[in-house]
């Protein structure tokens, strides 16, 4: 199947072109079928390729080139792709969940005026994302990186006539741009110091580069700044909650399952560099942990169902970065996958609710929906249990693996673990708060809406069911010893990707690059603690929202600390006051003083000068061609005279 | 010796001139006989046995008629126009090879000082291009005739005819490009030699080029179904409406001469010219003479084709003519050039040896 792999990249592009070019005329059904099959077929090709590639035994990546691109001296970049364990893993997630969300969108977007446009954008996004993960060099990855940024912008601002959506799109785009600068600097530094932008060459150059620790730290930091932007970490996370202005399938696909995890993927892809960058790695771990906790606290008091999920996404991404920072790359990638399942599931579930409630997103106006929407309720419950970390659902295994590895990290490991645990408690609390407010309790639904309340069509529920199966069972591939002796499929699977980097670092520094392996008793204690914390959160939530039936007050009703949290710690306002306002004021000043007065004055002055001169000379311009010809001839005569008698 | 060479050239030219004038005269007769046959009636059969003296009688009639000059014509132009037509028609003949090199009998060879003689007046290395240059000049004859007559039908006919000839020179030239690609030379003798094995008509690009060439050929000679310039129902007879007597005869002869030229060219370019098929009589002294016979046979066939088509097909409308030329033939020509280039690059070395 590997020989068909180029189709994986090309089919979404073709889908985009077909849908994009004909979006005015095409029937919606055709657009949906084309769009979905442009992702579904690649998914099956990828599945076939996975078996053909023999990931468990094969170490060498499968490389192929589609098109030559930039050839400038030693700098050679092609549209070349690298198929290996890591990129196959990501491709499976992207195309698998992507095609489910395409199917879902066919139902969710039904009747929307921009239906065809939506599918075109989605296909373009899949194409860019596949470029990002399959590229065999950093430049092509950057192309995909920018491409997904553009698609994210387009899809957030999908309802471009709504000011809030358009602004949210711009906010996402600009915030991402800050990170992208970091990424670009990283690429330049990599090329400067390692001499190539190809992963294979970078890998080969690493042993020689390892002694220059400081430089590697800077390179890694530059890349991490890129990741901060794309993956919504502190301090650049602010765009992600606003991005919920986009349609719900977009939130599920781009802002939960795939695009925002690009930063995590990038760190995994460049693992040799990050392994060798010890200080940056610590910084990553701290950033991840703080983000995980900070975002979770904001989630505690939000009332918009999608906002809660958005902050939970930021928080979960924080866990992934935590894992990446402590060098537990397998754990990070594991959580990436499980998170993709359960977060996509919950977003789609919330979408189903919103769809049924006629675009009502405020949880204060919901309640007791479980009777009306059985499938949505059950699948959403599974997702909530998974994210809260209740065994045997998938989230438990991945989050636990991360916390365990963090605990084992030398130096700051225990602190990080504690912060992560606090985050886990908040997560369990606010997720069950969401469930109780939405599906249980008193009905606070508007009676107009209630008349039409019904379960969503099959195109919506089918993806929910499939994702629920994944969210429930995906954790089984990597389990600790205490569960039936444990499985370690994932660590074996990723060995060819992460082992070489670790060998290099271990060989150079004579240390173990992997976090400490701990005894079974410690492991057991950690497990019990984390389950207890999760259960505490759930019980507290049950107590508050089920027994006391308390409902969040109206926007003005928040007092004290909850008010601060409800307003997201006023981070947006702080950014506005400290960064954006001064920038705008400086630009105004520059435009008035430098641009208008100095530069314009110069330009206009030159123009005026020549206008005055031409006032005198313009009489020569008679408009009669013969006069011009005559002057040419006279000029020629003058030249001839000078040449002949001028003594040259 | 030098003067002998010039003498031989002059003799060849004179002989050729005589042959084509006679040929044209009898071509007109043949046209009338064929027309008669196709329309199921008798052609001219009064003057001499089988009407064979008819052209002679026509000639005398043309020469003895009164030369009429309509008022308000531009006299110089009016006179020059038919001359240009006939001069161009005759000059085109100077480069057509009728046969290969013929050995002279020993007596003659000793007298003139060289052993062989070419059946061709001139062989410049621009060959077929030269012929195009000359035939492109013949447009002036028509346009000047139309303009100087001071008659709107003449002017319309002249402009129509010019536009038609300019338009169809493109497909004509582009289909000759195929032949040049296949043979690798502009010289007509070398084009002929390149077809010693396989005639170009039997190659795919050659076949397409032949069809385009034959369509353009009818348009270039202003013959039916493309005789828009002299469409009787619309323009009286077009550019030579105001011409009579010998001036008209010159136009008339030029038209028939052009047809014979085109027949020669199409036989040379696509149908193997004066080659003897399958290498019969190879090396024999008789071979060039047999080749000459083959060539004349081919030319006669195409000359007949001109008449056949004329009395069979109806006339095109003007816009149809232009659409055919610009939108059908030229794209096909361009496609064909690509095809022929591919053909020469990839299969050239195989087909050159076939039948040889």
């Amino acid at each position, binding site marked *: 199947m590997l020989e068909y792999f180029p189709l994986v990249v090309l089919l979404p592009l073709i889908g985009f072109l077909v849908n994009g070019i004909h979006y005015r005329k095409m029937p919606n059904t055709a657009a949906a079928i084309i769009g979905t099959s442009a992702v579904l077929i690649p998914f099956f090709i990828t599945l076939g390729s996975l078996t053909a590639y023999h990931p468990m035994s094969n170490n060498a990546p499968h490389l192929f080139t589609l098109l030559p691109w930039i050839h400038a001296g030693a700098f050679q970049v092609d549209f070349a792709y690298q198929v290996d364990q890591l990129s196959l893993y990501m491709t499976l997630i992207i195309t698998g969940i992507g095609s489910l969300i395409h199917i879902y969108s066919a139902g969710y977007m039904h009747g929307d005026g921009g239906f065809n446009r939506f599918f075109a954008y989605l296909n373009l996004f899949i194409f860019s994302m596949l470029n990002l993960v399959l590229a065999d060099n950093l430049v092509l990855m950057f192309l995909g990186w920018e491409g997904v940024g553009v698609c994210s912008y387009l899809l957030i601002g999908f309802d471009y006539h709504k000011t809030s959506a358009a602004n949210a799109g711009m906010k996402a785009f600009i915030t991402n741009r800050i990170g992208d600068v970091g990424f670009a600097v990283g690429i330049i530094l990599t090329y400067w110091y390692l001499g190539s932008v190809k992963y294979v060459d970078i890998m080969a150059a690493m042993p020689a580069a390892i002694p220059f620790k400081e430089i590697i730290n800077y390179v890694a930091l530059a890349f991490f700044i890129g990741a901060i932007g794309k993956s919504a970490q502190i301090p650049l996370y602010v765009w992600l909650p606003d991005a919920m202005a986009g349609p719900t399938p977009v939130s599920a696909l781009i802002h939960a399952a795939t695009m925002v995890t690009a930063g995590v993927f990038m760190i995994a892809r460049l693992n040799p560099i990050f392994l060798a960058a010890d200080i940056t790695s610590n910084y990553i771990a701290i950033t991840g942990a703080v983000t995980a906790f900070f975002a979770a606290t904001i989630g505690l008091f939000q009332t918009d169902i999608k906002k809660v999920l958005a902050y939970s996404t930021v928080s979960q991404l924080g866990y992934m970065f935590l894992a990446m920072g402590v060098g537990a790359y397998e754990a990070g990638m594991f959580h990436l996958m499980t998170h993709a399942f359960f977060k996509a599931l919950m977003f789609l579930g919330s979408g189903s609710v919103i769809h049924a409630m006629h675009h009502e997103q405020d949880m204060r106006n919901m309640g007791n929906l479980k009777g009306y929407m059985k499938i949505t309720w059950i699948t959403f419950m599974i997702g909530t249990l998974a994210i809260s970390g209740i065994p045997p659902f998938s989230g438990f295994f991945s989050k636990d693996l991360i916390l365990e590895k963090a605990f084992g990290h030398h130096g700051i490991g225990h602190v990080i673990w504690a912060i992560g645990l606090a985050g886990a408690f908040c997560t369990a609390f606010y997720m069950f708060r969401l469930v109780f407010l939405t599906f249980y309790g008193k009905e606070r639904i508007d009676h107009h809406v209630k008349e039409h309340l019904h379960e969503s069509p099959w195109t919506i529920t089918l993806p929910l069911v499939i994702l629920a199966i994944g969210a429930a069972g995906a954790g089984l591939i990597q389990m600790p010893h205490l569960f039936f002796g444990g499985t370690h499929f994932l660590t074996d699977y990723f060995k060819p990707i992460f082992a070489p980097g670790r060998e290099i670092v271990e060989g150079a520094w004579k240390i173990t690059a992997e976090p400490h392996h701990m005894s079974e008793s410690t492991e057991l204690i950690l497990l019990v603690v984390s389950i207890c914390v999760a259960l505490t959160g759930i019980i507290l939530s049950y107590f508050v929202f089920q027994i006391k039936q308390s409902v969040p007050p109206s926007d003005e009703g928040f007092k004290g600390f909850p008010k601060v949290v409800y307003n997201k710690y006023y981070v947006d306002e702080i950014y506005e006051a400290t960064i954006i306002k001064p920038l705008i004021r400086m630009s105004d000043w520059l435009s008035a003083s430098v641009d208008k007065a100095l530069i314009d004055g110069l330009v206009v002055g030159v123009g005026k000068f020549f206008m005055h001169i031409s006032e005198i000379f*313009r*009489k020569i*311009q*008679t*408009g*009669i*061609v*013969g006069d011009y*010809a*005559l002057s040419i*001839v006279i000029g020629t005569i003058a030249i001839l005279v000078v040449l002949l008698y001028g003594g040259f | 010796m030098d003067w002998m060479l010039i003498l031989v050239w002059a003799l060849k030219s004179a002989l050729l001139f005589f042959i084509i004038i006679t040929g044209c005269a009898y071509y007109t007769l043949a046209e009338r006989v064929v027309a008669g046959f196709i329309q199921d009636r008798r052609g001219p059969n009064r003057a001499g046995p089988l009407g064979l003296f008819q052209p002679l009688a026509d000639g005398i009639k043309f020469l003895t008629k009164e030369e009429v000059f309509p008022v308000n014509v531009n006299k110089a132009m009016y006179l020059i126009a038919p001359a240009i037509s006939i001069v161009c028609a005759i000059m085109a003949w100077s480069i057509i090879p009728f046969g290969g090199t013929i050995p002279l009998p020993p007596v003659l060879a000793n007298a003139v000082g060289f052993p062989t003689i070419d059946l061709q007046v001139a062989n410049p290395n621009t060959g077929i291009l030269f012929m195009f240059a000359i035939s492109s000049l013949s447009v002036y004859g028509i346009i000047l005739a139309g303009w100087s007559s001071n008659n709107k039908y003449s002017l319309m006919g002249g402009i129509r005819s010019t536009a038609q000839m300019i338009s169809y020179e493109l497909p004509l030239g582009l289909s000759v490009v195929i032949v040049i690609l296949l043979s690798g030379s502009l010289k007509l003798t070398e084009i002929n030699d390149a077809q010693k094995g396989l005639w170009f008509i039997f190659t795919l690009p050659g076949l397409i080029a032949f069809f385009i060439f034959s369509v353009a050929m009818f348009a270039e000679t202003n013959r039916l179904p493309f005789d828009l310039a002299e469409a009787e129902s619309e323009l009286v007879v077009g550019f030579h409406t105001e011409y009579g007597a010998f001036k008209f005869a010159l136009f008339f002869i030029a038209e028939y001469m052009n047809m014979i030229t085109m027949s020669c060219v199409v036989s040379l370019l696509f149908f193997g010219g004066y080659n003897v098929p399958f290498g019969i009589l190879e090396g024999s002294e008789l071979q060039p003479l047999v080749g000459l016979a083959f060539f004349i046979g081919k030319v006669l066939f195409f000359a007949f084709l001109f008449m056949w088509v004329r009395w069979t097909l109806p006339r095109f409308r003007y816009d149809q003519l232009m659409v055919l030329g610009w939108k059908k033939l030229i794209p096909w020509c361009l496609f064909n050039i690509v095809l022929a280039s591919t053909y020469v690059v990839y299969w050239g070395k195989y087909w050159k040896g076939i039948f040889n």
Partner: protein
Amino acid sequence: MQTYISGIPLNYYLSLAGILFSIGVLGVLTRRNAVIIFMAVELMLNSVNLVFIAFSKVLSIINGEVIVFFVMAIAAAEAGVGLAIVIAIHRQKKTSNVDEINLLKW
């Protein structure tokens, strides 16, 4: 010291070219019909072509003839566009006299 081409001194060719060029200049300066000015320009181009070929032959290098070939191609392009412009102007202003086409002035 004389240089010959085909038995004719080089200077003859150059003189002929000079005379032709002058005639062309005369035409451009005196005539007012756009098409005739165009023809005079073609005459000037041809005189330059003659010089190119003469020197190409004298120096025994072929480049001059290639340049002349290119000049012809460009002259053809010029003819097409130039005459199209003349026709377009004639359609608008009913004249091809260049003195009457004088809107582009101060």
